């Protein structure tokens, strides 16, 4: 599939926004300004962007506790997200959700989700709704190699096949479920896609560190699912550049592992090399995007720091029964 210059620049920008959003959070969290638990998506950008660039606002996604990348890729307001993570009253969820629960239903983003494996059944429900509407819309359940061990994920896959729901089970295999290796925890020798296959689904596998590979796989998958063939599953191999959560000492990593995956499996670097070597884009084009993104992230942090804080009275808003 040939991407236009604008499409490539747009995709690179989205990946860069996710990367710098996360790298900046990593720095800011250490300053103690951000409360709670945060799980960063750095390293996996090509998956979220490779998938979501081919979706519309009418398509649905549901995400995980590691959800910032999916939110950004699906079009959530980045500054609103930063305000949310800082706990502002003007955050995307008014400071009620925080990092693990960012959602924007108008954009088809049905929420990051703090419960591992909870998303897949919800995605099937959105897919059932989309099927009834008959407009070829789809629903994507992002799950990790951790969620693939939850019974909810199995139930969701079976139900989707039974009712032929246009649902895509998108497994991001970053090799760690929290602090446990995939070869230990996923009994099918670390192979997630074969499980989906066992439920009767057509499956795809790909390199989640290569935006173009993801794009190619998703083009096929989306064509298949939008055509009414029922659900499909995709397993993408990727890397998590940070720990499970911010503050995780990552003692489970091998010697030099973090340096190695940053050097060898950085999807942004791979993108840059590919497009400049093929003379699809100039390095200067990407440098300009980088500069714009850095400026935007800087502005979003500055805004979030001074954004209005919620008041005690806000605890009682957005409820439908008060006692």
């Amino acid at each position, binding site marked *: 599939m040939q991407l236009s210059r604008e499409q490539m620049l747009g995709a690179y920008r989205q990946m860069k926004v996710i990367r710098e959003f996360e790298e900046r959070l990593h720095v800011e969290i250490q300053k103690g300004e951000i409360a709670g638990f945060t799980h960063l998506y750095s390293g996996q950008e090509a998956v979220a962007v490779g998938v979501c660039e081919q979706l519309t606002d009418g398509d649905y996604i549901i995400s995980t506790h590691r959800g910032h990348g999916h939110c950004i890729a699906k079009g959530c307001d980045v500054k609103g997200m930063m305000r949310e993570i800082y706990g502002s009253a003007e955050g995307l969820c008014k400071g009620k959700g925080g990092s693990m629960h960012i959602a924007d239903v108008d954009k088809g983003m*049905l929420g990051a989700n703090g419960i591992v494996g909870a998303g897949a059944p919800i995605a099937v*429900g959105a897919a*059932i709704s989309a099927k009834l509407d008959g407009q070829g819309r789809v629903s994507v359940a992002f799950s990790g190699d951790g969620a693939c061990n939850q019974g909810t994920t199995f*139930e969701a896959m079976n139900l989707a096949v039974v009712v032929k729901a246009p649902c895509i089970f998108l497994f991001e295999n970053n090799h760690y479920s929290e602090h446990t290796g995939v070869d230990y925890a996923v009994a099918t020798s670390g192979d997630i896609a074969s499980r989906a296959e066992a439920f009767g689904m057509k499956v795809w596998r790909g390199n989640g560190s290569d935006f173009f590979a993801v794009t190619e796989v998703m083009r096929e998958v989306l064509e298949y699912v939008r055509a009414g063939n029922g659900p499909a599953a995709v397993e993408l191999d990727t890397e998590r550049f940070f720990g499970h959560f911010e503050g995780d000492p990552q003692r489970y990593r091998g010697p030099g592992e973090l340096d190695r995956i940053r050097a060898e499996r950085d999807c942004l670097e791979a993108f840059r090399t590919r497009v400049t070597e093929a003379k699809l884009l100039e390095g200067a084009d990407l440098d300009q995007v980088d500069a714009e993104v850095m400026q935007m992230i800087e502005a979003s942090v500055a805004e979030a720091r001074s954004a209005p804080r919620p008041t005690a009275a806000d605890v009682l808003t957005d409820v439908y029964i008060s006692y």
Partner: protein
Amino acid sequence: MAKMQLREAINLTLHQEMERDPSVIVLGEDIVGGMGTAGGPEAIGGIWKTTAGLYEKFGAGRVIDTPISESAIIGAAAGAALAGKRPVAELMFADFVGVCLDQIWNQMAKFRYMFGGKSRCPAVIRIAYGAGRNAGPQHSQSVYGLMTAIPGLKVVIPSSPAEAKGLLTQAIRDDDPVLFFEPKALYATRGDVPEEEYVIPFGHARLVREGSDVTIVTCGQLVGTAATAADRLAQQGIGCDVIDLRTTSPLDEEAILDSVETTGRLVVLDENPPRCGLAADIAAMVGEKAFAALRAPVSMVTPPHTPVPFAVELERAYLPDAERVEAAVTQLLGYRGSAPR
């Protein structure tokens, strides 16, 4: 007005609401029944017969017979609701809430609040509940008390066919997640039901009997038990207000407090176990807000703190009956010799 069973009132409501609003869909185990069998679809129409005829009329797109996968059923209802549908999911037995609790309390109950008020989750979960059919420890529990404790859910328990129809219509049209507990022991109970559409708003209790001596607060299948007790007590000259809560969340505190202000005595009759339950909750609320009006301690009439037993004799001993309610009322009237006003 037509005489019909509670199950028929539910079925009529589902037909009417699906007819009225194409966004209403239903899903659950065996709600069509017989899928993939020689007997074919509609072999049973739901184990409670509450969904009979829907598949034939509205088709497989809106009447979704699911595998036995409670988490997927409730999760799918949550997702369909976020995507703009009005799903009515059937959970075959209230006990199965344990299988899919995450989707109820961590997911649908929290969406509106944790997403900053920008999403709606208009899902209904219809749940058959209650003891009295010798279904044993895993098919007889009430569970509505546990669910009432969860912020973000509306909890509805109808007590008659007409109540079921009005409350279910409201549940389906409501923009928030509703757990609709159907007393399975009353599925075959008949009553007058208006055939036209009507809604019973949530949070408004119903006064089933009127009397000035003691207030009996209850809901669901025990409304009949309370009414029986009140009728017998009336023959002895003792008057009871019997309040059918209809919904435990929202709770009509005003109806309870108004009555207690008059009677000064309260019996809470509940089918849940006694600890941290609905009866204790209402007793505490009245203690906090109407202490001065009380002329006797609040009496909680509940099952014991045990699972629901199977054998006929055991289950009979477990479930509060009219005699226990009468005894509680009599005891309150005898408290420190206080007599009816």
